[in-house]
């Protein structure tokens, strides 16, 4: 039982990062119909920025995290503006190629500038505590809680604010949105920005317990893709639940069955679920 509890916490912690990254992928897809395969690399960039704020400019942890979100917010908007806006009318596969281009650019730029080796942010909360016999480090608890807070804020933003409304509307009919007076280009930029800021938050949250390397987002983005499909294209509640489910599948499958194949469980679950429900758990229409 203790073991199960420990594995569950491990799974929720994994799920928390997954959700934050998958939410970004989901929002971008929802608004712009583009599969953002570069999202893991924005995540990585977020971690690097936090790292340099802390080590080079002596920021403390939380201000660095927030500033990193802000920087990624602007980078995201910029990328949307100069790469994806010209590709507006093009097919998804063109956008996919552009995303690969961005991913290569970011990863290798970082490698060239800051080296291929890993970096580490000093852990601000290194202690660990015991919860019902399970040992959890404080930073991990913070990751879990911060994810919940960010998710709640995002939901409030989308469902309760007018700007949030416009994001949903733009997702469903771009020209229609433009004709009621919504600046759809701004909405796209904003979406990209928010998605990138979320990724930066996720990366900065886990950076102190993990390490920062140029390739840290590569596998993560694949999982985010799985989650966003699992939840049903563009469905935000789907992404949230899908993220936690995937984290738990990995932790429990990896813990109880086979750790080498734990990703097989995660990716296999997707194929299985889609075989039963071809539009994902929360999906309504077809793609």
């Amino acid at each position, binding site marked *: 039982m203790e073991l199960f509890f420990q594995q569950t916490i491990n799974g929720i912690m994994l799920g928390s990062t997954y959700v934050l990254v998958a939410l970004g992928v989901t929002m971008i897809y929802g608004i712009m119909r583009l599969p953002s395969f570069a999202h893991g690399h924005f995540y990585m960039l977020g971690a690097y920025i936090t790292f340099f704020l802390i080590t080079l400019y002596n920021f403390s942890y939380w201000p660095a995290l927030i500033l990193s979100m802000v920087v990624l917010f602007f980078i995201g908007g910029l990328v949307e503006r100069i790469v994806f806006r010209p590709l507006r009318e093009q097919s998804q596969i063109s956008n996919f190629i552009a995303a690969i281009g961005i991913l290569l650019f970011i990863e290798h730029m970082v490698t060239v500038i800051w080296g291929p080796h890993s970096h580490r942010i000093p852990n601000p909360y290194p202690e660990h505590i015991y919860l019902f016999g399970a040992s959890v480090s404080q930073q991990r608890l913070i990751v879990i809680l911060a994810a919940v807070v960010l998710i709640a804020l995002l939901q409030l933003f989308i469902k309760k604010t*007018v700007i949030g409304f416009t994001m*949903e509307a733009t997702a*469903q*009919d771009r*020209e*229609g949105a433009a*004709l009621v*007076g919504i600046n759809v280009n701004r909405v796209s930029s904003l979406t990209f920005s928010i998605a990138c800021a979320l990724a930066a938050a996720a990366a900065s949250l886990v950076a102190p317990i993990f390490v920062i390397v140029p390739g840290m987002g590569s596998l993560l983005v694949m999982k985010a893709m799985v989650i966003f499909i699992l939840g049903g294209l563009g469905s935000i509640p789907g992404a949230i639940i899908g993220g936690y489910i995937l984290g738990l599948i990995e932790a429990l499958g990896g813990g109880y069955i086979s750790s080498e194949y734990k990703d097989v469980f995660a990716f296999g679950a997707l194929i299985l679920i889609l075989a039963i429900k071809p539009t994902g758990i929360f999906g*309504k229409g077809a793609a």
Partner: protein
Amino acid sequence: MLKLEQVSTRIGGYRAVNSVCLEVRQGEFVSLIGGNGAGKTTLMRTIAGALKPFQGSIQFMGAAIEKLPPDRIVRAGLCLCPEGRRLFPQLSVYKNLILGAYTRRNDRLGVQRTLSQVYEIFPVLKVRKEQPAGTFSGGEQQMLAIARALMSEPKLLMLDEPSMGLAPLMVEKVSEIITLINVEMGTTILLAEQNAHMALNITQRGYVIENGKVVLEGSSAELSDNEQVRKAYIGA
């Protein structure tokens, strides 16, 4: 109020709108009549800013708008109820309407007032206000589209084929409503229609457009009597 001079727009390589001059004055109700592919939709989308003309000028209330993005034009008080409706299919009817009033989002009371007016005109929208717009039938969606356009309380309302795909009863009703909007609310209206019979019945003035060019203009009565128009668009 609205003034077009030598406006031309390309779609692909094709000049769908060709040197169009057109004027709508405050309070008027003007129709734009033309067959399929005549360029009505293209012209309206050009005015609304969804397409950019490569030539000519468009003035609205004295200001040039041909280079403005659609949202700025709506803000200026010019709203297009587009062909194909362009609703937000997964949002509820209510949210669709609220978004229609996006440019007036700081005027809550005003929006509520317009909303109740709209509900009065289209009672079905009130009954089914929580239903996602996409599950409405074609006709219901058309009504919602008109309603949504009204929500922005435009000074000039452009309607692109509001009668398309509507049942006869509904067509009648819609034309009554449009007239009402023009007369009672004082909204200037530009109406694009293939259904010339209906359009000329309710409007004061009209333009006939063919192959992207204005070929005839005049009062509705004149146009109705015009032999050419009768043959081509009224069919009797």
